[in-house]
């Protein structure tokens, strides 16, 4: 699997997790926020971490274009 394919896969998984039907009517609070909100804030943070870990930039792009 190429790095680009890995990034695509990770983002697709996170996109699927965005549709949190399982919290739809839950009113518990986690980290001080309603769980339906906490989940999505954590999702934003996870996207940042995932991009930092997996999204490699091809440095050959820096020089003469292919």
């Amino acid at each position, binding site marked *: 699997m190429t790095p680009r394919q890995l*990034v695509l896969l990770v983002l697709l998984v996170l996109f699927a997790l965005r549709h949190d039907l399982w919290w*739809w009517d839950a*009113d518990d609070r986690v980290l001080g926020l309603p769980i339906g909100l906490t989940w999505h804030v954590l*999702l*934003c943070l996870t996207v940042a971490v995932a*991009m930092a870990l997996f999204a490699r930039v091809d*440095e050959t*792009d820096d020089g003469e274009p292919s």
Partner: protein
Amino acid sequence: MTLAIILAYLGLVLAVGLLSRRLATGSGEDWFLATRNIGPFILLMTLFGTHMTAFSLLGASGEAYRTGIGVFALMASSSAIIVPAIFYFVGMRLWRLGKKNGYVTQVQFFRDRFQSSGLGLLLFVVLVALLIPYLLIGVMGGGMTLAEITDGSVPKWAGSLMVCAVVMTYVSFGGLRGTAWANTLQTMVFIVLGGVTFFWIVSRLGGLEAALDRVAADNPELLIRGDRVQPLKLLTYAAIPMSVGMFPHIFMHWLTARRASSFRLSFIGYPLCVAAVWLPSVLLGVVGTSDVPGLRGPAANSIMVLLIDKHAPEILAGLLAAGVFAAIMSSLDSQTLSLGTMFTHDIVRHYRKNDMPEQTLVRIGRLFVLSLLAVTYAISLVAPSSIFKLGIWSFTGYASLLPLVVAAIYWKRATRGGAIASILTVAGLWIYFFLRAWSVPGYTVAGTGVMPVAVILGAGAMVLAVVSMATRPPERPVLERFFR
């Protein structure tokens, strides 16, 4: 006091925009593209500031007041996933092609990729038509916000005029470099001030836990999605942030990156910036339902201003107004400049047979920016406030064109015929849904929760694929300039 803070802020933005001229080389490429030399931090701040509008501060809290926490899932987390993906898969690739083939505008790229001047003209018309209402919303939003925060002592026309005059000055003199610098300042301002406003108000309400307890007692349905957000709407709303892939002003900023690795901070930092701006706005809208109950319809969009009036000192009202101006101007400047760049390159330079000196192009660009803002300002004085509904339609149009750019850079078999058919399909369906939905609040396709953008985007992609397969493939020498 409020007005003094706003004037001081506008002066600061102007100074930063004009100061950037010291680094300018004076060339056309510097005015239009900052010599393709923007580093990671300024690129992130510029892209984020350009993409976010005043809606993320005021509109989001109004929407949360009406709908509850589901607004964050609907609008923010979709952007946090989709936008970095588009920066990574589309933006970096377009940057590389732009650097290799010397593009300045989207239309130049599409004309070259599909070898069609007519396709370029068609796309120019569509892109400009979708951007003009967006400009108008920014200019009118500035005037309305200032009038509201100052309780009408500064009329709408004066606020709109201030926004236009400041943007016109630093865009005309500083070009894209001035715009990028001013955007960086403005993005930092609205991120920080949104957070300050949130902490101040929530502390006055006895802390977040106490404020949410009051909402749980008064309006518990706002703390869950319930039936206020339909699952299909959550799914299809994700198509809206795809518009970032076709915005002319975002394309222009992509091309300014110094190197491919300059993008790295943008696709890591963007989702963090989204959370930092949207979480306070959504929470303030939700807790506002208990503190300022009874706002109906568009009146809910004033919730943040009302909370400040009730709980914060005047200085915070002034700072919030500065933050809103920052959010408005950081989009307006890039949109105006991108239209100026498109007009000079895609129309004037393209259709003039003889070569034109770069300095003449810059002069034409400046004149166009000046004229465009003057006309936009004049229209803003007479346009009805229902024009704000056009915002989502502007996003819908751009998002529906995303398959075009994805096919252009990833699918060798995409053809001129497929591209033209796709643009015409998108335009036709956009008009159809626009006419159906205009007078129906919260319209979704047949009431299913499916947003029109999902249907238009899907149809555009399908037509592009079918017509491309049915027409002659592009010539090999052309493809070699776009694919490794």
